[in-house]
């Protein structure tokens, strides 16, 4: 290892390199994508996935795992397409209620010392249930302003790129650079020392779950802005996508070790993998497997880097 290319920088660069590799492959396979119009189409579904991945990352940060995120995003999408459209006040209240519910979940998990996997898995059925009650059959309408925002066509740079960059930077500065962020991350990495230093772990967990819920709400709203309507299972895949995206982007299951920029890059990479495989004309039956293989490949490379880190 050269002095300039330490394991740490390699680890940080890995997600970006995977993204660059897949993007280059897509440009090669389908030159049409290399335009404003092409990038817009290629990436616009990345915005809700990136938001969901950030939401998952906040949970990973406190050493928990959220298995209800897909169902939660579906629910917020249903609320956005119905109440927020018909009666905005009720819609805003309901969405705020969703964030509060997430905060309460954080408190419950901390106070009763419950495994987050079990609680969130249980809650996923609750979210789907409420979503079906709100929107029994697919439908609803996207509020005009969300639709307008999601189909914005700014000059030069396509909106999805601006959106994911803004998301990554805002969260990066909030979580990685601010004083409060250090405490929040520390609580995941080393809860004991943070508690001894006088911080309330309960407050930390509640805050992290609330932020996660907030990004979940944003994800649902962004999704409806793109699809123009919702159904109760619309974001079912987001649970796994968000976990895979966050891990791909350099987060780890041990808590405290997260990377917002990496998470966003991971989410975009996962989405592009799907496009890449479809441009390859790969049989769809193989696509999920191939997506998994790419994920394993990137993680294996990270393992190699970690190992060389220890050896040197």
């Amino acid at each position: 290892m050269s002095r300039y290319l330490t394991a740490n920088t390699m680890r940080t660069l890995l997600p970006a390199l995977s993204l660059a590799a897949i993007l280059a492959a897509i440009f090669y396979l389908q030159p049409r994508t290399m335009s404003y119009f092409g990038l817009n189409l290629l990436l616009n579904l990345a915005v809700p996935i990136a938001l969901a991945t950030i939401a998952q990352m906040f949970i990973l940060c406190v050493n928990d795992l959220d298995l209800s995120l897909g169902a939660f995003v579906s629910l917020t999408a249903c609320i956005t397409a119905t109440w927020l459209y018909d009666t905005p006040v009720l819609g805003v209240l309901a969405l705020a209620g969703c964030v509060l519910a997430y905060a309460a979940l954080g408190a419950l998990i901390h106070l009763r010392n419950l495994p987050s996997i079990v609680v969130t898995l249980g809650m996923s059925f609750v979210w789907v249930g409420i979503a079906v009650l709100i929107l029994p059959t697919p439908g609803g309408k996207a509020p005009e302003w969300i639709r307008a925002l999601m189909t914005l066509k700014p000059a030069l740079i396509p909106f999805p790129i601006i959106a994911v960059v803004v998301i990554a930077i805002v969260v990066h500065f909030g979580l990685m650079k601010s004083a409060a962020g250090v405490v929040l991350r520390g609580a995941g990495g080393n809860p004991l020392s943070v508690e001894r230093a006088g911080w309330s772990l309960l407050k930390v967990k509640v805050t992290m779950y609330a932020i996660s819920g907030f990004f979940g709400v944003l994800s649902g709203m962004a999704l409806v802005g793109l699809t123009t309507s919702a159904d109760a299972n619309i974001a079912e895949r987001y649970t796994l996508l968000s976990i895979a995206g966050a891990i791909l982007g350099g987060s780890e299951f041990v808590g405290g070790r997260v990377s917002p920029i990496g998470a966003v890059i991971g989410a975009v990479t996962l989405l592009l993998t799907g496009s890449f495989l479809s441009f390859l004309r790969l049989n769809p039956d193989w696509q999920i497997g191939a997506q998994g293989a790419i994920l394993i490949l990137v993680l294996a490379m990270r393992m190699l880097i970690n190992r060389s880190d220890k050896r040197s």
Partner: protein
Amino acid sequence: MNFTKVTVAGAALACLLSSVAVPAFADTADKKIALSNNYAGNSWRQAMLTSWETVAGKASADGVVAAADAFTTAENQVTEQAAQIQNLILQGYDAIVINAASPEGLNGAVKEACDAGLVVVSFDGIVTEPCAWRIAVDFHQMGKIQVEYLAERLPDGGNLLEIRGLAGVFVDDEISGGIHEGVAENAKFSIEGSVHGDWAQDVAQKAVAGILPSLSDIKGVVTQGGDGYGASQAFKAAGRDMPIIVMGNRHDELSWWKEQKDANGYETMSVSIAPGVSTLAFWVAQQILDGKDVPKDLTVPFLSITQDTLEASLETTQAGGVANVEYSQEEAQGVIAGAM
């Protein structure tokens, strides 16, 4: 600028001349059509894809169109199919034929396709976006005629068991809505129980076996297709009297019906949509690309099999397949002309 005008006029003239001089399909020889399909996990969808391969594949080999490729999403999810449609736009297709995961959820992606100048034709699972064409099936009616048939067969009425499809899919709601409307009009019937069979024999068999002990005498079973055989096996295993089970044109259902008909004169009916509707959608897309005027809403008749046509239908249905009708270009033109 004058030069451009002349070329445009020339091109227009050439178009006009060519459409007069040669058969109708010559203009689409350089057009590419894609099929975007959300699900391939049952015999109906497999037959639908095979029909597409047979008819659209031949059309592209014959040079009627440049390409006619089928794409199926790995998971039956709106978000995936939306991404797939966006990818198809980028791959430069001129038309996309869609069997949609959701009537509304794909509207954003469909709008993107229309704005990019693509022709979008939806069938079976249709989309509501106004810029797309719709080849719809009257699923509501498909549910209702089952009850009407049973009303003829069972003058005294009785208890019915309803087997539904995949929960949350609008086709399921439509057929079920038709069944319930039929029951409301025929007071002698009441629906004793309702299970979800997911349009698959094994799921239906398990679901029916689970609910049977709690049900009293069942006279008829109303279904959505792909679940009749499973239901019959559940009734048989429970040692119950065999009710009139409405079938759904699947090969296993038809051959079981034939077996029973030969053994004890069992009578029923069978109704479903011919999976070959994908080929109708293909020709409709081709006709639109060819510059033909096609109404935005077309209706496709469903395919019923009666006691008398059973043998003939069974003969032409492949093992593991569904009774089918594939459309030719002329037949598709007929459907379009009928809707004008």
